[in-house]
């Protein structure tokens, strides 16, 4: 099977890889989030060291039509630093859990980045001019002797080398007792939500000293705790609607017009479970690690440990589509529980037209599903396939005894090479795949 997507077969080719090649990966270099902005011109990554790196797509020039726009470093800054919670004697990691871009409204770019406790609004702006010809100071900054100034001149704006500056414009702190897992910008472009394990807060982008609590599932007695919030997202068009997923595999859709505190859901999505197939692992692998609305707003997608499910917002009792990501792991759950891999949180994403979905797996494999043709493909992010414009070969995991030539057996999979974070360009067939400390960019040949 050559490719996946829309009506045509797409062919994914290697475009770029960023990051160090060393075997010894520093914990701080592990990429923890990847996100394109609304136009796809910018691609942001966050890492465990609290740093954000933003790449910008090169403008395509006429004489280089063959090489599509490459992403080059645009700006990098330290977003969060490690802190210490004195009350609980716990470390607050600087790891960037999520980055979400704001839609562009002027020349500057804005993004929200969050760690476990604090959300920050960053402004990234360009400076390509500077004023020259001041009266009171020399070009090198030293003050001029006022008695030696005999005439006035008006400073002139002169071009300078492009400088990209990132500055924190808002810091939204002290609103989460538990660890923030999601942030989502509302379609009103004025508010956003942040979700931790037990609560969801609604913020106004201009106001940092207060936020509204809109969901609180903390039980009065913590012994009665049965589920936690795992992800949350605002509806792409209806600014009053948002969803949140749980560790029990359920999704609740809430309407902020109904009540100030949205503890009671408007819709409750859950797939009925066959009681006879229930096992020790059932609840753990049903925990939803990511929820994403389709661009159309009609569907949403959830990722649990072994599958991706597409739900029609109009049907609560079961998903409309289910895709198996790595079903062969079902017979390895015991060891995956022992090495904690069963708790890995994979993300998922839609392509721009909602016709295809993508999610990661182990061994640096990632999977794509075409919703129209129902075809799927497994690809690998690896430096062995990193010749420019080299086409990616589909990979296959063999479960049975007989292993064909290019297949890899389940027991040979490297569970340390996990692809948890992927992103799809909002308009084109360009994807960004984070493989531990490396960022791979793949493009469709016919782009």
């Amino acid at each position, binding site marked *: 099977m050559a490719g996946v997507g829309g009506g045509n077969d797409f062919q994914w080719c290697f475009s770029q890889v*960023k*990051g*160090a090649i060393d075997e010894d990966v*520093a914990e*701080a*270099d592990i*990429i923890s989030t990847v996100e394109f902005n609304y136009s796809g011109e910018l691609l942001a*990554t966050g*890492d465990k*060291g609290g*740093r954000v*790196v933003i790449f910008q797509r090169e403008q395509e020039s006429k004489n280089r039509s063959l090489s599509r726009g490459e992403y080059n*470093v645009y700006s*990098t800054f*330290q977003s969060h*630093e*490690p802190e*210490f919670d*004195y009350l*609980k*004697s*716990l*470390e*607050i*990691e600087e790891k960037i859990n999520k980055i979400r871009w704001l839609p562009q409204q002027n020349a500057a770019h804005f993004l929200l980045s969050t760690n*476990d406790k604090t959300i920050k609004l960053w402004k990234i702006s360009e400076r390509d001019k500077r004023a020259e010809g001041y009266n009171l100071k020399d070009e090198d900054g030293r003050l001029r002797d006022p008695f030696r100034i005999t005439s006035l001149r008006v400073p002139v704006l002169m071009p300078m080398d492009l400088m990209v500056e990132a500055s924190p414009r808002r810091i939204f702190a002290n609103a989460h007792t*538990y*660890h923030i897992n999601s942030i989502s910008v509302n379609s009103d472009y004025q508010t956003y939500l942040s979700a931790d*394990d*037990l609560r969801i807060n609604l913020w106004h982008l201009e106001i940092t000293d207060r936020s509204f609590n809109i969901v609180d599932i903390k039980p009065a007695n*913590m*012994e*009665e*705790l*049965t*589920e*936690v919030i795992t992800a949350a997202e605002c509806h792409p068009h209806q600014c009053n609607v948002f969803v949140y997923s749980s*560790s*029990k595999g359920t999704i609740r859709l809430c309407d902020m017009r109904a009540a100030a505190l949205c503890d009671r859901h408007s819709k409750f999505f859950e797939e009925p479970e066959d009681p006879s*197939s229930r*096992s*020790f*692992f*059932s*609840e*753990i692998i049903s925990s939803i690690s990511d929820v994403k609305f389709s661009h159309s707003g009609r569907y949403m997608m959830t990722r649990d440990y072994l599958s991706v499910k597409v739900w029609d917002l109009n049907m609560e009792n079961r998903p409309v589509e289910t895709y198996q990501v790595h079903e062969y792991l*079902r*017979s*390895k*759950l*015991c060891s995956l*529980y*022992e090495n904690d891999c069963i708790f890995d949180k994979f993300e998922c994403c839609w392509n721009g037209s909602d016709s295809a979905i993508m999610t990661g797996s182990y061994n640096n494999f990632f999977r794509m599903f075409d919703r129209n043709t129902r075809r799927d493909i497994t690809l690998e992010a690896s430096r062995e396939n990193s010749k420019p414009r080299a086409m990616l070969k589909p990979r296959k995991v063999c479960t049975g005894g007989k292993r064909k030539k290019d297949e890899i057996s389940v027991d040979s999979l490297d569970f340390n090479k996990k692809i948890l974070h992927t992103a799809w360009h909002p308009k084109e067939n360009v994807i960004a795949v984070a493989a531990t*400390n490396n*960022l791979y960019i793949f493009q469709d040949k016919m782009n």
Partner: protein
Amino acid sequence: MSSEEEASIDEQQEMQDTVVSPEKAEEAKLKARYPHLGVRPGGSDLLRKRLTKGQKYFDSGDYNMAKAKMKNKQLPTAAAEKTEITGDHIPTPQDLPQRKQSLVASKLAV
């Protein structure tokens, strides 16, 4: 039905379960290795562990010592310090030792 027959029917059902469901087979494996594992895995214990993730330190001093140890490991060795100036004259910006770069840049930005 005699109890022996009942027992063997139960066994058969169990065997059938493991054949039919790989998940149940894995569960049996886990229980064999950890017989004292709680009956309700998704219950409070697991969730409580999730809520309090993060390394606990004795106090902030303990935390800062641990951070300092880690930083010394991670940073490349600092350039040789300029000779310390103490009380000789009022230092100019050139005389002061360079501030150590406390944060290493991301390798993605290279």
